């Protein structure tokens, strides 16, 4: 029996809609989609960055308007080199960020590991630890002012109960004011860090731990060979972003100490504020900003290079 076959016309199937759209698209259409983000970057990042760089080579005081801009070359930078207050404030910034950031990150890691275990009221604890990250800095500062009052504050009352007869004066003493700010920074930041670590810990492949346990690895060995290497890229990221953030701390210091007592808490950001917004030396303040940005950039690159090849998954960059 013969079967009559109908001839199929030689017509190609139409390309999918997406392909048709892409092929027919004008060159500028993709730019439309990225335009909002691009505009934001240009307006809020590129323009201030380039402007700041240009201003650092001038003696602009803002109040004279654009007519008052005078090009001074590298004078602001050479003046910075001999400005003792600049170097002192830079030193305080390094101490403040260099001590508070590792403490914050590692305390956050400890909290995350504790909260990663089955605990009664675990959700409530997570909320409590995260709360400082969402509370207004003035509210935080006001509470700490009460806590750190050398006479009536709970902190010193507690220390006296523990037998410390002459506890620190905290923000009332040049010797302990920066320590008080470090304490507050660690308290305020570790909850936020713990939430980030917690998310990473909950994504950890459990089969690695099971295999390690079968091989007889204890909790410390499991941490040093699995948890820590797996968290290293995130830890590096947190150290870098926290260091950048801490080196720019302003609000808390402005509210709590205004750079004092004496100049004991005048960190770089506050010294920049004084020069820019109190003395109207915007060129000089911008030069400080440029110099500190370069230092933070170098530190970031060093830290990033340090962690390469040390993570669990052997990431190279």
């Amino acid at each position, binding site marked *: 029996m013969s079967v009559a076959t109908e001839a199929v016309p030689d017509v190609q199937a139409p390309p999918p809609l997406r392909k048709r759209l892409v092929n027919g698209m004008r060159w500028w259409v993709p730019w439309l989609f990225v335009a909002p983000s691009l505009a934001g970057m240009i307006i809020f990042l590129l323009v201030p960055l380039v402007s700041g760089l240009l201003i650092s080579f001038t003696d602009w005081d803002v109040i004279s308007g654009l007519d008052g801009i005078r090009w001074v070359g590298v004078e602001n930078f050479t003046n910075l080199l001999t400005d003792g207050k600049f170097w002192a404030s830079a030193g305080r910034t390094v101490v403040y960020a260099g001590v508070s950031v590792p403490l914050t990150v590692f305390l956050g890691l400890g909290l995350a590991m504790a909260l990663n275990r089955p605990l009664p009221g675990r959700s409530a604890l997570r909320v409590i630890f995260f709360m400082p990250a969402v509370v207004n800095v003035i509210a935080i500062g006001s509470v700490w002012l009460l806590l750190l009052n050398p006479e009536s504050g709970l902190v010193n009352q507690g220390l006296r109960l523990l037998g410390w007869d002459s506890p620190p004066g905290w923000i009332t003493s040049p010797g302990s004011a920066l320590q008080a700010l470090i304490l507050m920074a660690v308290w305020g930041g570790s909850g936020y860090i713990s939430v980030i670590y917690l998310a990473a810990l909950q994504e950890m492949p459990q089969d690695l731990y099971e295999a390690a346990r079968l091989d007889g690895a204890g909790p410390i060995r499991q941490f040093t060979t699995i948890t820590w290497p797996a968290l290293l890229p995130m830890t590096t990221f947190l150290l870098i972003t926290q260091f950048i953030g801490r080196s720019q701390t302003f609000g808390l210091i402005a509210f709590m100490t205004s750079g*004092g007592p004496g100049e004991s808490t005048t960190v770089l950001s506050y010294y920049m504020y004084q020069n820019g917004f*109190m003395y109207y030396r915007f060129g000089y303040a911008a030069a400080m900003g440029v110099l500190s940005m370069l230092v933070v950039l170098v530190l970031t690159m060093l830290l990033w290079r340090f962690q390469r090849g040390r993570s669990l998954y052997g990431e190279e960059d």
Partner: protein
Amino acid sequence: METDPQLTALFDDRLFAIPTVYNPYMVYINQGLLDKVGITVPEDWTVEEFHQIAKELTGAGAAECATYKSLPLATMGIGGDAQLADDGKSSNFDHALWKRQYDLELAMEKDGTLLPIKRVLAEKVDAYAQSYFLSGAHAFYLDNPATLRFVKDLENYPHDFRTTFRPMPLLERGKDQWNSGSREDAVQISAKSKYPDAAWTFVEFWIGEGAQHVLTAGKISPGAVPTTDEDAEALLPGLLGDARQDTFDIEAFKTVAFDPALKLSVTTKTAGLTEIATIRKALDEKVRLGEIPVDQMLRDLKKQADVAITKDLNKS
């Protein structure tokens, strides 16, 4: 005719700004504490008597401290330009009155007549410290008439003592001196303004007919400073409030605030002043905390202030 710019605010016979407030400095005193200890404060008290009375009030336990602020002796002796040398190109902190001022402040810090700097820092006391005075903790409060608004506000600052007033103490009895207050809140009309006439009309209103609207805040227009008792009485309802008979020693207020002999100064040399204020604050804290002695403080202050002035002058 007076030619000192500190008094006239005229520079080369030209006026650059118009003050809108007459702000003499005076000492507010808790009359109840004086009565308790049996002290009478003379009208022409000296700096030394101020300190002595402060010690008696705190020593007797009547007041926790005598005052939040010490006396600005240099301004009282030299005027509004006390911080800068006559040529305006360097600082004036090597003047003997600055040493006297900081020696007095440190002595008051040490003997407890001044609110201790540790409490100032811990309690974040800044420009406004009227709560200490109105709660009865401090005997004196040094300020201009702006504080009247708090004294008469019995709802937010309930107190049952009467407030009396004395002039700023004398550096030396029988000698002329400046009042550390000033004619302030100066207003300027921009040279680029498109509406200078309208701006002038507003300024005229502000210091003239409109001044009555800010009187309740303790703001006395320089154009309304009374010269007769009748004029002074007319200002009292606005300045001192309805309960003034119970709250204030009215006669003392009129005598002190409207003394025609008061010399209010204007700051005419301004190079580096903002930075000098920051430097002074930092060094003052160090002195009061016992970190450095007064002599070193003044040397550092002179050195740093000179740099600040030079920077400012070079810029302009």
